[in-house]
């Protein structure tokens, strides 16, 4: 009982952290936009190195501060007016763009103190990067549920215990649920980030194939009346479907370009999954969320198995 309440809070708190945590860029992200000749206004945090000075009207007026970002890179930050609090110990959190004409950062709006906990600014993803905390655990659970289903299928074939067959079907049912959720969230996100709901990127194709396998699995199950036969044949089918899945890993990168981070041809995967790995803060939230989803899956499996036992008991006592 207690672990379920804990689990509820775990997922609720992590979701809030995932959504509320601000995204704060650094001088690197500003520089990346400057190189692309797109001087976009992005959120940036920095600490004050030098309180700076008033600029004469010749230099455009306002106030010039020397700031340092999380990686120790320094730059001049130009404020249109004197900032009211020059002694921010935590540093500034501002909306800014890089002004390549004056080689300084142009501050558009002061948001407040620099947040202690923030996610990195990823050019091209920005706030949309936060989907990772929900979408990735769902996709993982789809695969895990499929493997669990196949594992119990194999166990059924060895021991012929109907309980194993029901576990296999229950896990496949949850897998289908996670699969639909991952596909929908991913597809909606893709519309805003890549411009269309479906792009046939390798990972989209693989989740589509998983969706087809799950669909075929349940179509097969509903077409066989004798329980023992249904259990055997659906277990055999899930094994056959599972052995073909690895082939996609070899065939798909040859046929279609990847859009997801970590794709084979992804030259600049960005800070989410660059060679140095994901940002530590994001990684922590993501892995905690994965743990939460795994516990959620176990909980749902237990509910389904309990329901199954109750149904069996009722069927036995019924006339």
């Amino acid at each position: 009982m207690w672990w379920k309440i804990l689990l509820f809070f775990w997922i609720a708190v992590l979701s809030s952290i995932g959504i509320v945590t601000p995204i704060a860029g650094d001088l690197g992200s500003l520089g990346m936009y400057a190189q692309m000749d797109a001087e976009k206004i992005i959120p940036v945090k920095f600490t004050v190195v030098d309180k700076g000075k008033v600029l004469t009207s010749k230099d455009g007026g306002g106030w010039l501060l020397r700031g340092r970002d999380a990686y120790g890179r320094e730059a001049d930050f130009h404020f249109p007016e004197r900032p009211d609090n020059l002694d921010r110990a935590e540093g500034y959190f501002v909306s800014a763009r890089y002004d390549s004409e004056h080689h300084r950062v142009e501050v558009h709006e002061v948001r407040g103190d620099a947040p202690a906990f923030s996610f990195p600014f990823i050019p091209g993803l920005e706030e949309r990067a936060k989907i990772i905390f929900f979408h990735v655990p769902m996709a993982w659970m789809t695969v895990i549920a499929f493997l669990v289903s196949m594992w119990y299928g194999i166990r059924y074939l060895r021991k012929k215990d109907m309980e194993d067959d029901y576990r296999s079907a229950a896990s496949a049912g949850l897998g289908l649920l996670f699969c639909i959720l991952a596909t929908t969230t991913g597809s909606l996100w893709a519309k805003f980030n890549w411009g269309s709901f479906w792009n046939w990127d390798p990972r989209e194709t693989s989740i589509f194939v998983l969706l087809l396998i799950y669909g075929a699995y349940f179509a097969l199950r509903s077409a066989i009346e004798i329980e023992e036969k249904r259990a055997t044949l659906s277990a055999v089918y899930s094994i056959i479907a599972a052995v073909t899945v690895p082939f996609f890993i070899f065939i798909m990168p040859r046929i279609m370009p990847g859009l997801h981070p970590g794709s084979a041809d992804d030259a600049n995967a960005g800070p989410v999954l660059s060679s140095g790995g994901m940002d530590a803060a994001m990684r922590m939230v993501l892995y905690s969320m994965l743990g939460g989803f795994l516990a959620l899956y176990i909980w749902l499996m237990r509910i389904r198995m309990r329901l199954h036992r109750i149904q069996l008991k009722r069927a036995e006592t019924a006339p």
Partner: protein
Amino acid sequence: MIRQALAVFRKDLASELRTRYAINALLMFVVVTLAVIMFALAGETLSPGALTGMLWVVMFFAAMSGLSRSFVAEEERGTTMTLQLLATPMGVYLGKLLFNLVLVMALNLFIVLLFLLTMDQFVVKQFGLFWVVMLLGSLGIASATTIIAAIIAKANTKGTLFPVLSFPVLLPLLMAGINATKIAVEDQHWDAVWPDLQLLASYIVVITTVSFLLFDFVWKD
């Protein structure tokens, strides 16, 4: 086992030649499908690449309408038990696989010949490679669909279930096959096609081995 497989194969072949349940219908299916394509595309100029895709679509659906026959026929006539009393599961599986192999190769040969005869825009630049890909593709289709035919033979809605179950399993084969055929048609170098051929070959080996191990469960009640 091999002896039994050959006996099962000879039985199916003799039965098919006598009743012509599958062959006549399949040949007509291919002709009709091609006719539909030609009417639908009358006057259009299609690239050889697009026609390659079309060729595989026809091959896929022809296989889907014909290859479940050998197992479904045993189940429908009620001879499954008779065959169980006459041969080992391995013998039955190999015999049926052989029969499906011959059927799908004959079918695909027919489809390809009709394509070459009727579609003027379908010009194959590397015929040697093209035939290699067709052979591997037929082998792959037969090996994957035989076990699925054995599964669906025991289910209620046999006809509709067959393509539903086959498609996800056949998809890697279709992708590699289409890619390799395009290379053969568009005259790229042999090197480009090598990974696809390797994939087709390993797919055939893996699927046949797994089917071989699992067929016992499917065949026995």
